[in-house]
């Protein structure tokens, strides 16, 4: 017959056993390499799952969060203040017309608004309104090689990101100049942020100063720190 005491003793020893096996092996190089390989496999799966015609859900004006959450790898007061007079968007890589773009010239591009959900890799999400030019229209206008694999971005705050061409050509992928019907404030990436409702938040770079088209997969700030590259939603 099993008594309460033997029962408690056995449970404790089994519990101790599970804790012992729980010791963390994450920082082991071989483990990290294995996890990176699975992450690369997940990139391929996500690219395959991604449907270029499937639109991210859109929401009503009433659902828009006006006081949108600030998020970056530095405090908001350290965000770069770009001057409209000095700002130029540089183009590089597989692009026919690499003329520099001023803010005034960017403003002449056709604009549209979207109310979509920003989903952070941490798990929180927020509905916002962004206004700008579909990246596809811009890529076509500058004669970008749309058969290339990727579009990459370099930013004034030291950030860098890159996305697959399929996502770059998605109808909701925007070069955003406004948030909540206002010109992007400095902390949200004035003058230009890439808004991609089919990607996690960290794949939406701010303060974009260089846009390039390439067949080499661009690096990403957080990808270089171990996050999944594709990070599609």
């Amino acid at each position, binding site marked *: 017959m099993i008594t309460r005491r033997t029962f408690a003793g056995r449970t404790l020893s089994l*519990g101790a056993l599970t804790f012992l096996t*729980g010791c963390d092996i994450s*920082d082991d190089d071989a483990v990290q390499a*294995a996890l990176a390989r699975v992450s690369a496999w997940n990139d391929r799966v996500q690219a395959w799952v991604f449907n270029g015609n499937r639109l*991210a859900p859109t929401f009503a004006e009433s659902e828009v969060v006006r006081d949108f959450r600030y998020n970056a790898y530095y405090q908001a007061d350290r965000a770069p203040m770009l001057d409209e007079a000095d700002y130029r968007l540089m183009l590089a890589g597989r692009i026919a017309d690499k003329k520099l773009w001023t803010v005034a010239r960017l403003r002449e591009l056709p604009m549209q608004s979207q109310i979509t959900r920003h989903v952070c890799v941490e798990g929180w999400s927020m509905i916002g309104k962004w206004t700008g030019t579909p990246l596809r229209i811009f890529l076509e206008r500058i004669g970008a090689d749309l058969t290339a694999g990727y579009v990459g971005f370099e930013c004034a705050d030291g950030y860098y990101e890159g996305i697959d061409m399929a996502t770059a050509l998605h109808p909701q992928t925007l070069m955003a100049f406004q948030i909540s019907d206002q010109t992007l404030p400095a902390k949200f990436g004035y003058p230009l942020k890439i808004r991609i409702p089919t990607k996690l938040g960290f794949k939406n770079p701010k303060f974009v100063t260089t846009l390039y088209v390439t067949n080499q997969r661009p690096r990403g700030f957080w990808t270089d720190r171990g996050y999944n590259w594709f990070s599609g939603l």
Partner: protein
Amino acid sequence: MSVSTKNTAAAAAEEQHHAWPVRVTHWLMALSVLTMVGSGWRIYNASPIFPFTFPEWATLGGDVEAALARHNDPGVASAIAWHFAGMWALVLAWLGFVLWGVVSGHFRRDFLPVGPKTFWRDFVAALTFRLEHRLGEYNAVQKAFYWGALLAMFGLIVSGLAIWKPVQTYPLEVLFGGFQGARIVHFLLMAAICGFIAVHIALVALVPRTLLAMILGHASVPAKQEHQP
């Protein structure tokens, strides 16, 4: 292969058998669930949905301080890498276990029948330490718990998919009451699985030989060790 009991007066020996597909998928599920829970807790801590966080030592994803110092990341990158690796193992193990359970008749033979009446009877008995746990024979509480665990894992996989791919699987999250709802359901099912594991381990503690059966495929109790009826 199956769980069988010889419970006659002549041969009172209890026996338990587990076919290799059951053992392999069981341990793969166990390992992947532990990985998912540990890494999930670390991910949860990055943006808690309830007013508490999990102690760091109980989470999976490496040294937080080192990751912060090295590149400003609270160890979430590794946790997510674990989570999105573990999910494949969990899906494979779950599918394997369920497929085998259905095809081999393991579910029908050993997880059924289970009704509310027998469940309540065995539940009360278990709580008062009066439940006879016989090697190779599942009581109604166990049967219900196995079904519950399998269902919870299914729910975790589906709600996880809704969280991982909220655009590609969009209408799915509506089932859970939106994106936040899916996160909450995912969390609650995790808690259910943790509860299951606690009870599961407690029951193994009651009949330690059952652990041998799940490792070696077979365990038995000699005939002389007779249980009270």
